[in-house]
């Protein structure tokens, strides 16, 4: 079988591999190279060494969006995972109407980021104007909390589904045995259910982490970085550096920012996988 398959392997592998080379490997390699260049298109690149990196590390808007992204990510990861886990616990209790609740909570996930951003922009602006506060375009703290609420609204349902699948795999004889031994609901949650769903926790934290760091559509649609770039996250900041201004210098800065962003996302997600994986138990 091995031999025959090897002979046929180009038919199986090449279509995906070619598309993968066009869609990912070439752009990735070029992007890495161009971060050391001055350019307006791929063909007129001039090598400038680390000059781009030197500039962006002093770029206040980049550092600001860096901070904003981290503060946003920490709060949204905690909120989304705690609420999603709580909902999953409730929805595995065999209450009435569980299916309807699950359907409703998951729904926002199917709506795209751009549309979600506009829906919430209208809603939040209405609340702000009724409270006679400045609207989103001039109000950076409302922009921050708006993004958090929007992200929770969208992601909680998704993570809830993963936690429900995890909780349903907890063997019921374990829970029963603990009940007979006199454990209360709180003990069962902390000492049995939570350790048994640690693999779901790993995945959910990973997904919320990468989603929060890479957040773009929602940021663009809800606040667009207003007021004065104060609610601009890393992905949007890079996009603005590339496309908001003309000039050879800015593309190089944008690409260098993108490389740093990429390294950051890979490093943080690897670190997180290592940390939470070490807490997983074998079933």
């Amino acid at each position: 079988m091995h031999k025959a398959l090897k002979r046929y392997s180009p038919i199986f592998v090449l279509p995906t591999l070619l598309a993968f080379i066009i869609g990912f490997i070439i752009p990735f390699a070029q992007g890495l190279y161009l971060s050391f260049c001055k350019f307006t298109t791929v063909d007129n690149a001039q090598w400038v060494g680390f000059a781009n990196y030197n500039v962006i590390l002093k770029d206040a808007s980049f550092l600001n969006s860096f901070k904003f992204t981290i503060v946003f990510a920490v709060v949204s990861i905690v909120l989304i995972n705690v609420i999603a886990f709580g909902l999953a616990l409730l929805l595995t209790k065999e209450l009435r109407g569980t299916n309807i609740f699950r359907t409703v909570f998951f729904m926002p996930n199917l709506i795209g980021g751009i549309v979600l951003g506009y829906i919430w922009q209208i809603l939040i602006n209405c609340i702000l104007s009724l409270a006679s506060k400045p609207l989103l375009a001039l109000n950076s703290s409302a922009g921050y909390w708006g993004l958090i609420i929007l992200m929770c609204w969208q992601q909680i349902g998704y993570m809830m589904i993963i936690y429900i699948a995890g909780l349903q795999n907890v063997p019921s004889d374990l829970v029963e045995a603990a009940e007979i031994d006199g454990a209360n609901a709180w003990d069962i949650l902390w000492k049995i259910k939570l350790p048994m769903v640690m693999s779901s926790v790993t995945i959910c934290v990973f997904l919320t982490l990468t989603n929060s760091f890479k957040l773009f559509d929602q940021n663009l649609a809800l606040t667009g970085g207003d007021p004065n770039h104060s609610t601009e996250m890393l992905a949007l900041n890079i996009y603005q550096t590339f496309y908001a201004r003309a000039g050879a210098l800015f593309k190089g800065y944008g690409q260098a920012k993108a490389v740093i962003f990429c390294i950051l996302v890979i490093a943080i997600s690897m670190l997180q996988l290592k940390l939470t994986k070490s807490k997983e138990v074998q079933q």
Partner: protein
Amino acid sequence: MKQKRKISNIIWITVLTVASLLWLYPIVMILFNSLKKETAISTSTAFTLPTSETFAGISNYVSSLTSQGFLKSLGYSTLITLTSVAAILICCSMCAWCITRLNGIFSKIIYYMCVLSMVVPFQMVMFTLSQTADKLKLNTPFNIWVIYLGFGAGLAVFMFCGFVKSIPIEIEEAAMIDGCNPLQTFFLVVVPILKPTMISVGVLEAMWVWNDYLLPTLVLDIKKYKTIPMLIQYFRGSYGKVEMGPMMASIMLTVIPIIIVYLFGQKYIIKGVADGAVKG
């Protein structure tokens, strides 16, 4: 004890009901506003229901459907999603089966490149990707699926590999001994076993492609082709006065088909999400 449990259940059901009504409210609010007359829509009155004076009927929907190329965008979005998902399902399942069964050094390189591509943010490749797409003339809705195949391959290959590992190899060997070549073995024996995973991968990739904004914006010629997310963004981003009525009607028109598909395919969508959670 039983009595106590009953009461606590009622409390929890009430809490969940209130929460799910709040969850639905943003969409219901857009629905109400899309039925109002243009003059009645303002920032501070978004929460009020349409009255007999401000009720505009379906006129906003009519103007949104007849102008702004809404139907065209709907067509492009559907075309792109269908071609991309089909390409991803066929090509990536073939690739994943082959590299899992061969399992040589080359297979491992492809596999880890795919895992890497799932974590890399799109901003890293967006500029170079759009230029590559322009050069290779992959910048129309009819062939942008090549780009989506390349960029969506990571998740798909990863999920298919995970599943193929759990299929006993004996079934395939039996087919080969009976005279199937690898292509026949794959399409007649492996694909039927992979069907549930295909549906899950298809759901996840379709959710991504349908809602994707930045990739088509950068790759497609925005003057000629707009997908649905591009249309909504263009609607808001264009200079001059934004017509809020048709805008909200357009939002509803993009949300309603999604909700209908969701209600019918819920089982598969939720299974797809749970199956997708095998990372790490």
